[in-house]
């Protein structure tokens, strides 16, 4: 007798979940499949069935997927959980990972992806979609700019302030309105936590901006 992986499917969308359970059952006969429609049911079935793995929808009514995940992680740390979601938002994936999920699957994944994820997780691996990591936003060469969250434009304006240009002159030079330059200037002072033109000059000189 081969060991059957018991899987608990939790999703409030009946069409989806019945389709999914049938699909899983058809594809591979070594799955024991249970179905839950909301968070409460999941909690109940977990204690009855002790599944190996739970495919947990994030957006369930009542007790949501994330809460169930946190609870399971605390009470039944042995049960693997794969989050199901229609969103591939980085912040959701990150949240799931941090809350102790073993995997994160998009609902419109293919059956192969699903099977691979289940297999990976059963083997103790993590299965998360790749997150696009862009280089740092503020990848300016200037470390001071990075430290104080200064934008390119602000650095530009600081340079012009250093050249002792007035707001009006800066505005003309950069094709900006006076108000825009004034706002930039105000923001610079705010970011650098300075309160006078003199202190700004001193800052510029001190940090050799």
């Amino acid at each position, binding site marked *: 007798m081969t060991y059957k992986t018991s899987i608990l499917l939790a999703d409030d969308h009946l069409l989806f979940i019945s389709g999914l359970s049938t699909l899983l059952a058809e594809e591979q006969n070594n799955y024991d499949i249970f179905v839950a429609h909301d968070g409460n049911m999941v909690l109940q079935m977990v204690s009855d069935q002790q599944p190996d793995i739970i495919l947990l929808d994030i957006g369930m009514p009542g007790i949501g997927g994330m809460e169930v995940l946190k609870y399971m992680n605390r009470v039944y740390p042995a049960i693997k959980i794969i989050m199901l979601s229609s*969103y591939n938002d*980085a912040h959701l994936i990150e949240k799931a990972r941090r809350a102790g999920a073993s995997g994160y699957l998009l609902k419109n994944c293919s*059956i192969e992806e699903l099977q691979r994820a289940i297999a990976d997780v059963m083997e103790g691996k993590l299965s998360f979609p790749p997150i696009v990591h862009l280089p740092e*936003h503020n990848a300016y060469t200037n470390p001071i700019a990075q430290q104080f969250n200064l934008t390119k*434009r602000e650095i530009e304006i600081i340079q012009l302030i250093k050249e002792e240009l007035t707001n009006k002159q800066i505005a003309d030079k950069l094709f900006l309105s006076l108000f*825009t330059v004034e706002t930039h200037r105000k923001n610079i002072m705010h970011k650098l936590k300075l309160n006078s033109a003199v202190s700004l000059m001193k800052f510029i000189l001190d940090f050799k901006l």
Partner: protein
Amino acid sequence: MPFFWKRNSHISLLALIMATLLPAFSYGQKTIYIDELKEGTLFFMMDRCQFAFATNTDQPVSDLDVEGLDWFEVDRDRYHNFGRPKGKLWMRFSVTNDSDHETELAFIFGNHTINEIALYHHTESGPQHLHTTGSGYPFSSRPYPFFTYVFPLQFDSKEVKEYLLSVDAKGELMVFMPLMLVPQQLKLQNDRSYTALGIFIGIIVICGAFNFFLFLFLKERIHLLYALYAIVAIWCLTSMVTMDFQFFFPDHPQFIYPSRFSANFLYLVFLLLIMQRFLRQTAKNSKMYWPTIVFIIANAVCFLLEWIFGVPRWPAAWSDIHYSVLRMVHFCSFLVIFLSCIEKIRQGYRLAWLFLCAVLVLLIGGVLTIVNTLGWLDWHTILMPPTPLAMGMVIEAMIICFGILYRYHLLKREKERLSLELQDHKLTVAQEILRVEEEEKERFAQNLHDDLGGNLAALKVAIQRLKVERKVADHLNILVDTTSDMTRRIAHDIMPPEFEKTEFNQLLSAYFNRLSSTGNIRFHFIADEIDGYFTKQQTLMIYRILLELSTNIVKHSKATEATIQLNSYDDYIEIMVEDNGIGFDLSTCKKGMGLRNIESRILFFHGSHAIDSGESGTTIIITLPTQRHDL
């Protein structure tokens, strides 16, 4: 020593001697000694005169038997009320110049409206005519150019003169105050009267002109009414002492009476009109509305009647009726004003006090005048300005002017309050609409995600179960995938999943990350922590604003880089969105749907925004005031 008998002239021995020396018709104990005049400023001489009513008015003076008249005396020295004589009143007095030099004196009759007044020097050979003037004569007939009748009297040294005065005041109430003064005193009195009147007129002119300009600027009728009222008040002031005659129509004495009476009626017309507006009296809120209207019309009709029938004088037979009607209309008009003010005060309209005070001041002036002429009080100032009535009128005008300005101030404040309220209300309605719209959107997103998204996921599962050709399956898969992608994006943009439970900046940062990775524009996102400043709904709106702005950049700007900043200040959040794109023309794009959406959302926050678009791209700065919700 003349001083002795000056005081006790009737028992003075010298006086008796003098009496024997004087002509038989002179009544020595009553004579006025010129020396007496220097003691006081004005010498009231009523009790030094004798009076007689002429039975036969048409009798020529030369035929008059002076001694044969029924002479009587009056024991008051100032005002005396002789009633309404049917014929002429004769008056006589004697003056003794006990000094060694020639002297001049001025005799003032003390009533400015007498039909005819003639002065005679009463000699042994009979009355010798000196001057005739009166309200039937042009101003040039006055022996001395003053608004009241002044007769210069000349005396040789040690001369005793007796004067005879014939006064025709048929139909008029004969109240007067004869007095004598030295020429310097006359000059003083003259200057005082004209200066006082000048000052009064000046004050009213200023108030009137001020209101006229207010009318030009504000277009409020009450100011125009006041300006007209001021003109009529000036007319009243001058006609009261017949100065209108002196300065404006000196050759047309027939207008003296109509001018005087009609001015008063017109004055009341304007006073009532102003009152009505001042008290905001309407048919709905006041029982006095119709009485006021009635008396406005009554006064206006009387005004016209004065000109139609009163030129040059009312027929003597109508005089009594004329005066009764006049008095009644005046009295009732003031009663209407009084009651209207009381009514408004009782309704809680505080400004009515001001109007009541103003009118009371005028009434006090009027009552003082009446009391004086009735002889209950002895104020000689009622003869020449500043008279109590004139003062009352000026003070009234000033109080009403002040009242109107104050009222304007109050109205303006109330108007401002109302418009603010209206604005507030409009804003509330707009906010409510926006709120409902947002809720609807959220529900929509929820449904989209839950139902449609779920069905699509189920569809995807179902497709995988289909035993079809690989090619067909792939095609179906792609279709389902793109459809669910689109659905997800729509729902996502309306409200990202787990919105409330996710840090706002993390959400945004993920969003801009994705935007950068999918397009040609690099989005830089720099943000201060703003969680806690806004409600969930407000945060959602900020999210939408940012989405709208970044979508605009993606769609229209042709930029390569964009910076989105959220800067948190003490009492506001500043959103600054910059791109290095081609910019846009504010005048043509301003009404674009996207910007309008943003504007209405900014309005929701009571915020403001500035758009700076040009060669170096577009900068949009949005300021949203904050109230911390945890405070």
